[in-house]
């Protein structure tokens, strides 16, 4: 039992200890008429990245990506920060779930 708590405490320490590099660079995506601009966004690989998503439509949108492990509702006429990474170099799809036909894009990590 005691060893279980030791392991749990160690795990908590490893996870909660502050990491050196927080996301520093800023990137922006804009939703307009249920489309993302730019539809392809380049970000650096192997580091955490914060992307500001501006929803300039009147209706809410949900930024969603399994590959990026993000689901975030962005109410109409507002903006939100989406934190992703660290990503291996490659292409990562995302969609606006409420308008999946048009709201599509890809993050390119390099």
């Amino acid at each position, binding site marked *: 039992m005691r060893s*279980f708590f030791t392991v749990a405490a160690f795990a908590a320490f490893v996870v909660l200890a502050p*990491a050196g590099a*927080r996301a520093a660079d800023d990137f922006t995506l804009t939703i307009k008429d249920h489309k993302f601009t730019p539809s392809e966004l380049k970000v650096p690989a192997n580091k*955490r990245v914060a992307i500001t998503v501006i929803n300039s439509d009147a209706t809410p*949108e949900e930024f969603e990506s399994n590959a990026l492990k993000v689901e*975030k509702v962005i109410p*109409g006429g507002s903006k*939100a*920060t989406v934190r992703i990474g*660290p990503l291996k170099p490659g292409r990562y799809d995302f969609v606006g779930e409420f308008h999946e036909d048009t709201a599509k894009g890809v993050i390119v990590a390099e």
Partner: protein
Amino acid sequence: MLGALIIVFREVIEAGLIIGIVMAATRGVTSRGRWITIGVAAGILGAAVVAIFAGAISQAFEGIGQELFNATVLGIAVVMLMWHNAWMARHGREIAAEMRTIGHEVSEGAKPLTALAVVVGLAVLREGSEVVLFLYGIFAQGTSGLSLLTGGVLGILAGAAFTGLTYAGLLAIPQRYIFAVTSWLIALLAAGMAAQSAQFLYNAGVINRMGETVWDTSWVLSEKSLFGQLMHTLIGYVSQPTGLQLLAYVGTLVAMYVLMRVARYRPEARPVRA
């Protein structure tokens, strides 16, 4: 219309699976219908409130309010599921025996019903708020709204039918195995929720470690497919899990196992080990 149907259906079945499991886990317990109904009703009400205040929630805590909210909702559900399983580990056998002898519903299982009602409520709240926001968007857009709305309503009905199917499927399990099976389902459900909760904390920047993807099985099964999504809800399947998600998942299963062992332990039934 089909698009709306699919989106709403996919949100509803996540909550529906959970309701189906909860109903199977409480089979034969008096007043469970009332508690589950209260859970669903409170969840729908909560979903509407969350949708109305979506903007305020997003802006709270310097923009990470939504992540913290989701992480908390999932975290509470995990604790409730743990408590239920621990309670059942202690009392499940008596309840099963009592049901066999008296051959009808028992009232003793009513206690963990409150915990499960909370789980149902939170599941409906989380998925429901997305449905409300989506349908609100349809309304706000006007013209093509009617056919989309029809799709949305059909999606809710299809999701409800799916809940019924889940329940019916679980009912096919013989009574003497049902507690064991539902305990396992609830343990895996809780582990998946814990991994999701940890990911929300990571997205919020509260946790900043172990965010690297460990493996990728999206070529076998993607969460975008219906089956992948069902597995995601049911057992927490993630095609590209991070170290953090794996730690939360395994940690929850271990904690659940230890808790159930401790709960099952009865000093009078076994020799005491100092």
